[in-house]
């Protein structure tokens, strides 16, 4: 399994904030999925809220693009560059989670 310390490769990298002691799981995603995530982001309306995940356990997903920019999402809120947008259907988060190779994510990811 790749780790959050191994995300310096060029290309799109996704991951989930789920562990505490061990490194969080990360995985490469194809450019077309990365572009699809970017398209989702572009259509989302801005909100003044900030995500408030629990302290421990599943705390959202993240995506690095080839330029090192980072998007994070937790349920219906997606954040990039200090701006948060509402994703009512959680499409961004679900797209990232569904891109994870089988066995990458632990069952506790789904318990939240």
């Amino acid at each position, binding site marked *: 399994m790749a780790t959050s310390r191994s995300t310096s490769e060029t290309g799109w990298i996704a991951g989930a904030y789920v562990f505490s002691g061990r490194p969080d799981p990360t995985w490469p995603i194809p450019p077309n999925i990365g572009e699809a995530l970017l398209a989702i982001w572009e259509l989302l309306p801005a909100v003044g809220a900030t995500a408030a995940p629990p302290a421990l356990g599943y705390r959202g997903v993240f995506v690095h693009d080839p330029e090192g920019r980072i998007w994070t999402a937790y349920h219906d809120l997606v954040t990039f560059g200090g701006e948060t947008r509402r994703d009512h259907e959680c499409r961004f988060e679900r797209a990232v989670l569904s891109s994870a190779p089988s066995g990458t994510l632990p069952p506790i990811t789904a*318990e939240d």
Partner: protein
Amino acid sequence: MALRITVDIFSGRPNPVLILEGPEEKEALDRLRPERALRGREARPLPTSTLGYRGLIVEQSGRATRGLPKEFRVANGDVFGEGFAARPADPAFEEFVCGSTGPIRRVHREPDLSEFILKEIKRLDDLRDRWKPGRPDWPRRERCRCAPLYEPDWWNVPAIQPFNNCYNYGCDYRTDTFAQPGRAAGAMYTAFSCASVRPAALADDLMASPSANNRCPREGHLVALVIAPGYDFHWFRKGRNGYWSHKPGSTPVTNVDNSGVTIPDPRTANRGPYTQFCTFMVVMHGHIKIN
């Protein structure tokens, strides 16, 4: 000569104060005239430092009336001064003063205040029956003079936060390597279980302290190991203020649990999937080596 009576009831706002003079003062002193000394349980202490009504504080200006202290408290129908406890001629003196037709009506405009005070007088009666005098039950949260300060702003920055995990934070040791128990000693854990992570931490020279029971050590600081069985481990650390904080993986340092409340004891905190409490351990500053 005058009688100053303070209704000792409020905490934030000033207590009502009334001054009785002339016939009113005489009537009040007649009602307060001691009939007999209190004996045994009758003279038990009044509840102190409680919220709500605590009695009437009576101060006599000029010479004190014979038989009464210069300053005394009327509560529970009785009169209490320094070395003095007596049953007065009118045990309903408080109700007389504070009732809707009593002298207090002159010093307030709130229509319900009399009713409120009368209820409070009754509450004090009930409370005194249950009151157990003794040392105040101060908060027992232990302060840990050797423990690290809670300084989330130091950890929660881009150059540090993503590269240091709960083990780094628990040990108060920045490595920027997402430190793993046992890795520095060549004895890294092999499973996400207490039986595997605990000896790995011992190999890093953390000290076993299974019976710490949430008490601060004389030296070093206390940490706690919890396990998400089969998936992960997590560490909390006890801070100088006696409360616990933690750094969930690459995410920010926090001092609340999964219920959003501060953590007096990690054994009882809402820990999400980290359902197994493994053990307390002690980090001796400068002794450990983690990576």
